[in-house]
């Protein structure tokens, strides 16, 4: 699998942002392969079209051969099969199986028109959450149930902070309408459908700030429904998390 530097010029040619996740490399190389093939076929087909039309001599017997009818077709079918199988192996590695049990659990809550992110806190279990209780104004954007002790140490933030190099298991929730959770620079996209929980897992490996977008039209504020993903080196992340837990404990104690 080529490194990011190797395919950087290609990415730039196709206006693709550089990716910051492990599975992104494979996805990029497959995407680039597809794009080059598409570009090649587009040029070839249009060239054939133009040449065939402008050529001055008329070929007397029109071509009607079984080979000409089915061989190219078979070749294309093989090409599509190859691409499909290659794509599906990537799809399978990302989607057929869930995240490893030791992956960092984060819950993503989408609502008109903001993303919130919930960390399980010290007890590593999410507290009960109910949509009816969701109210960002009263400082409870996740709809935490106050009667549930597990929820007291849950950390809810409007910004997603993740450690580099560790697998992340996101579980997507939507409060009101369908939202599209997308991090283009992580080559990640999954709709958050109200009433269901959608899981998606990935491993960020390039520290930095990335954009989290909503990619499913969700109302008049759709275009400004964004959040920031900050990927920190593992140590800094641990510091950050410990600090958040501290703050949370203070809040709960109050």
């Amino acid at each position, binding site marked *: 699998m080529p490194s990011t530097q190797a395919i950087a010029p290609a990415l730039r040619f196709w206006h693709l942002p550089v990716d910051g996740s492990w599975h992104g490399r494979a*996805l990029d190389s497959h*995407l680039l392969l597809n*794009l080059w093939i598409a570009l090649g076929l587009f040029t070839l087909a249009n060239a054939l079209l133009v040449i065939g039309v402008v050529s001055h001599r008329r070929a007397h017997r029109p071509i009607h051969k079984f080979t000409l009818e089915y061989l190219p077709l078979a070749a294309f079918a093989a090409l599509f099969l190859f691409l499909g199988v290659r794509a*599906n192996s*990537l799809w399978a590695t990302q989607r057929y199986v869930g995240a490893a049990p030791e992956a960092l659990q984060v819950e993503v809550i989408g609502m008109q028109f903001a993303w919130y992110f919930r960390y399980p806190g010290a007890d590593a279990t999410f507290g009960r959450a109910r949509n009816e209780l969701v109210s960002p104004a009263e400082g409870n954007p996740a709809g935490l149930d106050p009667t549930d002790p597990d929820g007291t140490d849950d950390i809810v933030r409007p910004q997603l902070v993740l450690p580099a190099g560790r697998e992340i298991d996101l579980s997507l929730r939507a409060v009101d309408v*369908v939202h599209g959770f997308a991090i283009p620079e992580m080559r990640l996209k999954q709709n958050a459908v109200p009433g269901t929980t959608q899981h998606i897992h990935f491993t960020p490996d390039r520290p930095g700030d990335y954009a989290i977008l909503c990619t499913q039209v969700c109302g008049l504020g759709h275009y400004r429904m964004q959040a920031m993903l900050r990927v920190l080196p593992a140590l800094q992340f641990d510091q950050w998390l410990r600090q958040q837990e501290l703050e949370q404990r203070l809040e709960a104690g109050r």
Partner: protein
Amino acid sequence: MSAPSQKLRKSPARAHRIARAIFSTNHRNIGFGYLVIATVAVAGGTILSWLMRLHLSWPSWNFPLHGPILPEEYLALVTMHGTLMLFFVLTVAPQSGFGNLILPAQIGARRMAFPRLNALGMWITATGLVVLLCAFLVPGGSPIAGWTSYPPLSATALAGPGEGAGQDVWLASIALFTLGGTISAVVMLTTMVKLRCTGMTWRRVPLTVWGWFTAALLAVLAFSVLFAAIVLLFCDRHLGSAFFIPHGDVINSIPLSRHGSGSPLLWLHLFWFFGHPEVYIAILPGMGLTSMVIANFSRRRVFAYRLMIATTLAIGFLGILVWGHHMFVAGLNPFAGTAFAAASLAIAVPATAKVLSWLATSWRSKPFLTTPMLFALGFVSLFIAGGLSGIIVAQPILDEYLHNTFFIVGHFHLIMAMAGVFGLFCAIYYWFPLLAHGRVLSESLGKWHFWLTLLFAYTTFLPMYFSGLAGEPRHYAQLTGLNPPAQALLGATGPAQVHITIGAFALGLSQLLFLFNLIRTLGSPAAANSNPWSATTMEWAPHGLSEPSPDLPTPVVYRGPCHYTDDGASFIPQWESPQPSTAERE
């Protein structure tokens, strides 16, 4: 009481003519009616798209008499643009419009089956368009949920402006559309099955008819499913049911307390079960026409004619099985994603066969590069440009990055919108002599029109691929004032936005050339030549399109279409009897 009768007595002929036009059951009037519907819709849709582009490129620009476009207004523009163009242009014009105008003549019938039903279908569709346009006037404005109207956004007025009366009007309009479309499809199917003239065996049927036939079959199957979905959504909106609304859904911190626990995914399934066949309904007639036109002006038989029939049917059939590829990241089970991807890539094979046939038919044939031929070739080019990206987004893992970005927008605008429009222009230039008493649209103006349209089609829609690859999502009212990383990511597409906008305006304005051509030609005197393109199909036969009357010879077909001598110098149309001796013997 007496006033109207007075008026009638003043101009009885005029009133009579108007009444005849309105209550006419003649398939030509009905076909023209459909074309009028499509023209109104395409004009409206184009203007809406211009407003969208202006706002996307210069968000802070104040429109005269209105001020800046608000985000919800932008979404309303997107929704109405999509609905007008897809439902009332790309479905109505090629299928119902030219279907009614040309189809009967092409199968050697002088009329459609069930003429009254046919007229009813046209008027229901027209009502649907009027109702849709009313969405601009209702309080709250037109809907903002996009042409796919995903619930719960479309399921309650709480979800945003335009989701009240506007969404209801939208539902009513689309319900009418599906009704009219089904009626028209049933009429066309019966005509094609029963009214083919003597000798028009299924092997001799032109590919255009195969396109219409497959599209009509898909319409009958798909439209009623959409109608069912609309009924269910209406119940959710007004009768307190919860087919598409999940349990404990809270919108604007107001709980929608409903019995039962539905799922938005249910709507996605029903909608896309309709939505994907709909795409083929829009493009299949164009494919058929392209094959026939390229063959006619290359003076060659269609390369692999029977394979082309098979691929038309295969594309239609597989079109029923692939709707899930619109839902790869919408919460579909990943295994289902694989299955739908396989079916979608399977469609690429018959589609490739069609492209190969088009290339092989025109290959070194020294064709007559008339305007219809140029538009047919343009159709091929655009079909390739849009189809290749279709193979990319058919792969779930790549769709995970490209879904709902402008890459998709570019894809379906090239393969469906632009290819569809080129098919329409090809049909207009090709069949104009039939519909306008032998007048031929000016070739020089037509060629200018073609080259400008092709150039600006690519100028407008190719850059969308790149802005999509850069990550620009659909339905974004503006790409400014976002949070810093998003701004850094999407702000980069600024130049592309301006480029696309300019292209869109140029594309729209170059159609004025066509209007001018149309008006000028209609002003010119009628011509005599009944078959100016030396075509072989039945609609060009003497009296091909004339009214049914007992004194006209009954059409008889003796061979398949596209019989040309190898040097292309001469041809034998379908209606020429092979051995006149038998005729004398009778």
